[in-house]
């Protein structure tokens, strides 16, 4: 059992989400930065999809009622267990009664806490993820919440001491693939997109990263019929300012998508913080 002492600005339970139900209006949801999330689970011997905690802007404090092994990955934070500093991207032993504290990240946005055995809250539609758009899954963590921990029986041994992880770039360059609706935009829209600096707006969340920068001009008027949307889509509303869809994005949308992030860039997008600048490249 884990007791939430402080959740920080936003902490949610996440796993790999609810794929396969988008036709029913159910977003995939799940950890926003799946690369960091899967690493945290591997470090403690869990299957990659075991539920853990996604901390937005750090700040969380969790008291462990029993002995546990944990790993913290993602946005770099100071990690303290009963006040003693520990390394990120490494398995750490937490003695019963100890408090795990995450500081504020020095770069990036989302840090992940995996616990050996996984967080064992009830599943909703096959997943323990909190979906902030549709309200599925457990509510965001609040002080006093108690999270059950699953049994570590049958798990892999813990066999890695620490994993070297590249620092997050100050101004990331996210690779995009044009389309599916780049033909709805002026012919120079893609070159505007790839030659400009964009800045992350403060009203970004798990649904999407809103951007400020040069607007993309439409080449045609009229309405696009609503169509299915994927994670990483750069959807462009009438303002011309793209929104990068993250894990809790709506399953269908009626604004044209000028380009889609390469899958490998979605994890980088999930670590963008408000005010940060970024580029796009083809």
């Amino acid at each position, binding site marked *: 059992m884990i007791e939430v002492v402080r959740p920080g600005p936003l902490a949610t339970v996440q796993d790999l989400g609810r794929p396969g*139900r*988008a*036709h029913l*209006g159910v977003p995939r949801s799940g950890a926003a930065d799946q690369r960091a999330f899967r690493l945290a689970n591997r470090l403690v011997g869990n299957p990659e999809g075991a539920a853990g905690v996604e901390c937005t802007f750090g700040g969380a404090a969790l008291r462990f009622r029993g002995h546990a092994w944990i790993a913290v990955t993602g946005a770099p934070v100071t990690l303290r267990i009963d006040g003693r500093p520990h390394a990120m991207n490494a398995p750490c032993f937490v003695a019963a009664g100890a408090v795990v504290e995450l500081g504020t990240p020095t770069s990036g946005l989302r840090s992940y806490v995996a616990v050996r055995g996984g967080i064992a809250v009830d599943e909703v539609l096959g997943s323990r993820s909190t979906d902030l758009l549709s*309200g599925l899954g457990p509510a965001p963590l609040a002080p006093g919440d108690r999270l059950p921990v699953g049994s570590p029986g049958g798990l892999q041994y813990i066999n890695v001491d620490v994993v070297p992880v590249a620092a997050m770039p100050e101004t990331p360059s996210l690779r995009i693939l044009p389309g599916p609706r780049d033909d709805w935009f002026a012919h120079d829209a893609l070159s505007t997109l790839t030659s400009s600096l964009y800045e992350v707006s403060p009203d970004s969340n798990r649904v999407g990263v809103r951007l400020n920068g040069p607007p993309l001009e439409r080449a045609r008027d009229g309405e696009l019929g609503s*169509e*299915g949307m*994927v994670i990483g889509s750069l959807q462009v509303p009438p303002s011309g300012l793209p929104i990068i869809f993250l894990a809790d994005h*709506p*399953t269908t949308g009626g604004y044209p998508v000028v380009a889609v992030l390469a899958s490998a860039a979605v994890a980088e997008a999930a670590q963008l913080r408000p005010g940060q600048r970024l580029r796009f490249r083809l």
Partner: protein
Amino acid sequence: MKVRRVGDTALLVETGDLATAHRMDAALRSVPLPGVVDVVPGERTVLVVADHTTDLGSLAARLPRLRLAGDVAGDAEPLEIPVVYDGEDLDEVASLTGLSREEVVRRHSAGSYTVAYLGFSPGFGYLSGLDPALHVARRASPRKAVPAGSVAMAGPYAAVYPSRSPGGWRLLGRSRLPLWDVSRDPPSLLRPGTRVRFVPEERS
């Protein structure tokens, strides 16, 4: 049928119309293609999402050649949704359409609808088939909370709010039929292609 690339894991098939989108959706559900993880019909498209191991090029070549069945809904009876027509926006809809309250209700409940696609929130189906005389814009400012079961319409679509959510559609009434239940599998009574009728019910 044009197939567009959607990033490195998905394809968007332009079917040209809703009926073909539903037939393709049905074909992909009855015989799932290897590697496909999500199939999402839209108004004139089907989005096909694959896993990272799938060769999108060969998938793109295969999709337009799929054998599509005839009418998807077939002879299935339409889902009947009971409605108590006492919605907050009935008078406003009457004045916007120039019809009487009773005529708005009559036309809404006389229609035969098809779930075009779902989106906005889990289980929220966009129902095509709304009488053109009832097409009105959504409210200038959305309500912060629309109760679950609210029967509503906006533009060319009718809908029932499956759960409590914000919303700008015009409210005509309410239904006691639970369209969305996470303890059911599938959780939604509405799926793309489901046919629907609204049946007026006395105030309860």
